[in-house]
């Protein structure tokens, strides 16, 4: 156990001594209102378990899963601590010990069978959606990595992306098999053994491209940090669609611009994880007549949709409450379109937004609607 946590030992100590200044920003703590759910609370319990003061049991494990990995707490931490790292290691320990929540263990088993979180067979559908533009690997130097969330919930977004790429005369390949998940859910949930196997399989399929582009910032981040950095794959560049699009903004022609009131939501994985704040904003500004509005807390301070860190699986009710809080703010701001750049955010905010009749759209879709 201590091997996995050794890397985070200092962070765990620091957090347990801290007067928990970051706690007001923790979305999970806001929902549960429990001291245990605060970053400090979770780290303290982890410390006590690590030190053998308390038993590392199912209760401890359950608490460690109460984190969406939004790392908003890092913004309010002078030590720049990203608590999710320690929790992910703790979750791996929990899985190893067999004390992780049942849902998580069952998820792992299902994933092993299907190669993705949803137990779906994506292959044919995606290729059909993409249409004629998909080219053979030899010809295309760029790979579109759709990611499981987009493929499962928003296949239309793939169509939109393809449309934009066609408009740009950009040739690409598409990974359209069942192994369409980058593996992040496994990592976040501590199913690290299953993850290793999956990584080996996927790496073979995505290595060798000049460019990998994805609508999903989670995939971008995960591929970069867990595949590219370790040398598991050799790829020229891994980009999020907003980076890709911004570089080519001059080549795009709009039929008309958005006149509705847009509010932009920074996805945690795009913003705090990848540092991409400006690109989506530039695109939105360019696409709209009156510009767009920010949430009260934006950029480094942007609040989570509840979808990351496996929270939507391990604690669906908490995840949902977190997204509702965002929707409430959107309503207070009088927005008409909630724009974002992440399929998971679109999923979480879209579902809660639906209850309130709110439109949630990915930038790519907004763009695709308006190009000539």
């Amino acid at each position: 156990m201590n091997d996995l946590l050794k890397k985070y030992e200092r962070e765990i100590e620091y957090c347990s001594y801290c007067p928990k200044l970051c706690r007001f920003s923790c979305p999970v703590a806001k929902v549960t209102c429990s001291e245990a759910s605060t970053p400090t609370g979770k780290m303290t319990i982890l410390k006590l378990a690590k030190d053998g003061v308390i038993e590392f049991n199912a209760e401890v494990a359950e608490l460690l899963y109460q984190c969406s990995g939004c790392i908003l707490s890092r913004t309010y931490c002078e030590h720049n601590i990203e608590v999710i790292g320690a929790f992910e290691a703790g979750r791996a320990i929990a899985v190893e010990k067999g004390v992780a929540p049942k849902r998580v263990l069952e998820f792992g088993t299902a994933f092993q069978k299907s190669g993705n979180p949803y137990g779906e067979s994506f292959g044919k559908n995606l290729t059909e959606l993409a249409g004629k533009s998909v080219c053979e690997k030899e010809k295309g130097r760029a790979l579109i990595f759709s990611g499981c969330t987009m493929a499962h919930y928003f296949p239309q977004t793939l169509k939109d992306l393809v449309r934009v790429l066609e408009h740009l005369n950009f040739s690409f390949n598409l990974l359209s098999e069942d192994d369409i998940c980058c593996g992040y859910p496994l990592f976040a949930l501590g199913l690290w053994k299953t993850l290793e196997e999956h990584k080996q399989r996927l790496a073979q399929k995505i290595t060798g491209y000049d460019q990998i582009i994805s609508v999903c910032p989670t995939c971008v981040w995960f591929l970069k940090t867990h595949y590219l950095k370790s040398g598991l794959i050799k790829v020229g560049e891994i980009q999020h669609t907003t980076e890709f699009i911004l570089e080519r903004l001059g080549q795009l022609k709009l039929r008309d611009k958005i006149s509705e009131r847009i509010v932009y939501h920074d996805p945690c994985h795009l913003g705090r994880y990848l540092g991409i704040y400006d690109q989506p904003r530039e695109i939105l500004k360019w696409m709209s007549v009156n510009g767009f509005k920010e949430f009260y807390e934006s950029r480094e301070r942007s609040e989570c949709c509840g979808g990351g860190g496996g929270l939507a699986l391990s604690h669906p009710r908490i995840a949902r409450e977190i997204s509702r809080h965002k929707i409430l703010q959107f309503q207070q701001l009088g927005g008409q379109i909630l724009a974002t750049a992440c399929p998971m955010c679109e999923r979480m905010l879209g579902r809660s937004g639906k209850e309130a009749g709110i439109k949630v759209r990915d930038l790519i879709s907004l763009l695709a609607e308006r190009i000539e």
Partner: protein
Amino acid sequence: MKSIAHSSLPKAVVQEIIGIVGEDNFSVMPVQLTSYSRDIWTRKTLEMQAGKLSEPAQMVVWPENVEQVQALVRLGSENEIPLIPLGAASGVCGGTVPLTGGIIMDLKKMDKIRNLDQESFLVEAEAGIIGEVFERELNHQGFTLGHFPSSIYCSSLGGWVATRSAGQLSSKYGKIEDMVVSLEVVLPDGQILRTRTVPAVSTNLSLNHIFIGSEGTLGIITAATLRLWEYPRARAFQGFVFPDLHNGLEAIRNMMQAELRPAVIRLYDPVDTYFSSQGIIEEKPKPKKAGLSAKRGLIHLARKVLPWLYTPSLPNRFLQSRAKKSKLILVFEGEPEIVEMEHKQAKEICLQAGGIDTGEWPAKNWWKHRYKVSYTMSKVFDLGFFVDTIEVATLWDNLENLYYTMQKAITKNALVMAHFSHAYPQGCSIYFSIAATGRTLEDRLKRYDEIWADALNACMQAGGTLSHHHGIGILKAKWMEVEAGGANPLLFALKRTIDPKGIMNPGKLCAGRSVFARNGLKSPAQ
């Protein structure tokens, strides 16, 4: 996965509680109870660090409205179960630490802003709202509460009122009692007291002040109506350095007595000034990643060696004799023209007192990092040291006496430095920071207790007050009798009247076999 079998509360009581708050709003899980067994009291951190956990409460509940609080209080009263109201557990004196089991009533689910009266500059909010969330919401509407304790990110409105907190900008905006217009309190007999939301009437004065500072021992504050300020339209920063502490104190006294009301007025004693390089604070760039795991070996070494090497009297003596200068930080905010004039007049006063103008940067820099100090706690504890703060106050003509008396008392056991802030025309508060260590947990705790005993005994002797704004909790309860100056019978009468069964936060505020201890149970050991 609520495990009723593990609860040490009677089954019937637990069932009733579920009936009041629902399945989702209570917990007896060890992981939860452990998380609620400490606040930010240094003593508790030391214990946790060494793996020593204190006896937890028997249950945590999260009432969602005042009716649920009422029902819970009645239940507690009928069954004589201790009740501990809790906001964000950010206290530094053990105020929310359970001593005799009982039920922790976490009020954070009561976190709404009930009403914002923009015409009357009043806001009614529930006790469980976290400070920074509250302040940001008010800012959106063009207001400020003006209350910025360094714990604003992690403390609650209910906690503020219950402990009589003060914020960093209190010299302008006042303290929490200056902000409270009316309260909603659930009394130990289950009745709801709502003092009237009207400008100053005398019965309000009495009633409000019975509960402001009661630290959970007289009732549960569930909501408060507070007076607001307009969000400031201008802000000015100014730093000064004085040749010695005395001149600096003269300067701030003269400023307050000249009817200036700087938002921030902080004078650092020579030792503190020495550490911050006489006004030049280095701005460390933020590291790109959390690379804290480096140099772990060094930390272990430091932890082993330093306690043996550490004799605070040496560095103290060195610093106290060597360091002379005193740094002053001023911040003004409000109406632009008034800010400008106050700034100008303050400068004149400081120059007259022998101060050297250091421009706006020292103050601007402090402002940028004004909550930073609290983060250093982690570093210090990780190194094997412990820190704490002792904050007192007195009138001007006694201030230096109090400062030197307490410094002397603390010096042999801990590195000690101080700053003066929360200034008034009549006096000022002193905020001592102490750092010390010990070889084992027992050593550390012993030294910790000694530091506090020496400091507070010196304080009482020198005529200072026990606490300016941190409150009493468990830590300072022993000295309340002296502090009260003979008025303790009134305090005890209040307790006997309002909480005759002694169920409200037993063991806090007053020590000994007084009614503040749990009836029939042993008084908690310090």
